[in-house]
């Protein structure tokens, strides 16, 4: 009987458990959780502050998840990995032997070395449930909040706390919001919507020095605040594998089966670099669907099955104050745009393929577009003109529709 250890207790970890159990019902699984919580849906922390969920409903899997899957859950931090002896050392001093291990340690916030940061009393990250609960505790209706970082984390945080705070200012060194997923024009549309909902922005500008409750900005401006949120970026948590001599880039380097360069060591989720089929290169795809797919893939292979993850792409569905934005793939090639009263859609095409898209406001049935990217469907085989007008199964030939809707898929 095999014994498995999974380091981490987020989405990739839960998926790894499910992947292992799809092959092996018997082997023992130990889950090492650095956070003192049942597995929860990390992206829901902003919805928690907004009041759209609670700590009970945001459990990613039910209360009996570990018991149902025959897992031992250990609340501790892994401090060393020894692939020679096949052991994981915990901060409690305990050593866990394993036959196969999955590193699913996620990422940690990148805290820039800004002068005077230590003089700021109330400063928070926005990565964990504990971060969110502590932030909620610190806020009053009068709080002036400064959020450093106008990316996905910073902006979801802003949305989540808007009604709990007095004012919210978001700054970012980038010249636009959501610079990792939106081009300048699309970012402008989203920014306008966010401003209409009460957020203030200082873009192309960031804090270079703090003096207690004052941020001195690169532009020379001074911003007074009561609460500071740092959402500058994240770094993959790769230390265990790196220290054990494994190959690490921006994340733990993996093959298509989520094996790291170390024997019997797998990696999945935000700590891992995987294959991005939209660019054909390896990168950290720090999104929840990818964490699940990587974790599940790792689990199947750890248990002796054979599963490869070949069609992962970056994709995001994100809403702010009722405006939904969806993006997927890469923004190369030729751009085609469709505008209407309710929104804007941009398609990026090249070599007879849909490479990527940005949808703002009009997001219905977007999965049809996403699947064209993932499956690398030749555009010459579908009705591309119709596809631009709306996402519909009518873009396919009758024969393809027959296969899709007349058979088991």
């Amino acid at each position, binding site marked *: 009987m095999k014994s498995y250890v999974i380091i981490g207790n987020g989405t990739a970890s*839960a*998926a790894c458990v499910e992947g292992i159990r799809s092959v092996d019902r018997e082997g023992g699984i130990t889950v090492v959780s650095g956070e003192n919580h049942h597995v929860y*849906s990390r*992206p*829901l922390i902003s*919805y928690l502050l907004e009041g*759209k*969920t609670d700590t009970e*409903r*945001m*459990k*990613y*899997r039910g209360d009996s998840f570990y018991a149902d899957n025959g897992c031992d859950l250990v609340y501790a931090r892994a401090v060393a990995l020894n692939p020679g002896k096949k052991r994981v050392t915990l901060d409690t001093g305990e050593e866990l032997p394993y036959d196969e291990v999955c590193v699913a340690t996620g990422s940690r916030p990148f805290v820039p070395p800004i002068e005077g940061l230590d003089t700021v009393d109330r400063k928070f990250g926005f990565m964990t449930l504990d971060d969110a609960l502590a932030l909620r505790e610190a806020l009053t209706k009068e709080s002036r909040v400064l959020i450093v970082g106008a990316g996905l984390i910073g902006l979801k945080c802003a949305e989540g706390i808007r009604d709990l705070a007095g004012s919210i200012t978001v700054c970012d060194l980038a010249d636009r919001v959501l610079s990792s997923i939106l081009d300048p024009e699309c970012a402008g549309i989203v920014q306008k919507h966010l401003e209409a909902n009460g957020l203030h922005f200082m873009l192309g500008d960031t804090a270079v020095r703090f003096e207690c409750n004052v941020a001195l900005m690169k532009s020379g401006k001074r911003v007074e605040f009561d609460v500071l949120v740092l959402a500058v970026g994240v770094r993959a948590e790769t230390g265990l594998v790196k220290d054990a001599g494994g190959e690490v880039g921006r994340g733990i380097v993996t093959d298509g089966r989520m094996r790291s360069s170390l024997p019997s060591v797998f990696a999945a989720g935000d700590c891992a670099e995987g294959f991005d089929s939209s660019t054909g290169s390896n990168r950290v795809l720090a999104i*929840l*669907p990818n964490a*699940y*797919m990587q974790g*599940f893939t790792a689990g199947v292979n750890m248990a002796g099955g054979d599963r490869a993850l070949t069609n992962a792409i970056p*994709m*995001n*569905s*994100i*809403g702010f104050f009722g405006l*939904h934005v*969806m993006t*997927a793939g890469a923004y190369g090639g030729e751009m085609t745009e469709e505008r209407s009263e309710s929104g804007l859609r941009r398609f990026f095409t090249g070599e007879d393929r849909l490479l990527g898209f940005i949808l703002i406001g009009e*997001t*219905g*049935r*977007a*999965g*049809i577009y*996403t*699947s064209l990217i*993932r*499956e690398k469907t030749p555009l010459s085989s579908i009705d591309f003109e119709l596809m631009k007008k709306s*996402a*519909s*199964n*009518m873009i396919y030939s*009758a024969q393809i*529709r*027959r296969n*899709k*809707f*007349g*058979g*088991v*898929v």
Partner: protein
Amino acid sequence: MKRIYVNEEWCLGCHLCEYNCAFANSGMSDMVSALKGKKIFPRIHVEGDDRITLAVSCRHCTDPICQKSCIAGAISKKDGVVKIDRTKCVGCLTCVLVCPYGALVPGENGTMQKCELCLENSCGEPACVRGCPNRAIVYEERGGAE
């Protein structure tokens, strides 16, 4: 397992399936008071143009990408049926972003709802199938071993 299959050549484009779906999931016993004068939010949608029409609902995929992608862990699969726990859904629409069939559409309050084959509502079997006047939607076993 039994699933819903559609044959576009027999579809009349009458949209009855949408009304029967909305009624079956309304929790009400009278169709008129459940639907009359209201915007309906069915879990099956007729697509197409004036030549071809097709009713699209959840395919209950063998390897459902919506379940894997749900950021709230609200989508699960049990005994082949892909279900959503609407109390956990926060309406992020990631499932809409990934469903290759365009089968998922939000419900009235912005959270997601989906076809669960009417197994747990008052109909007990897919209402879209039962009410289809031309047998364009069927509920049966197809395909080989799963």
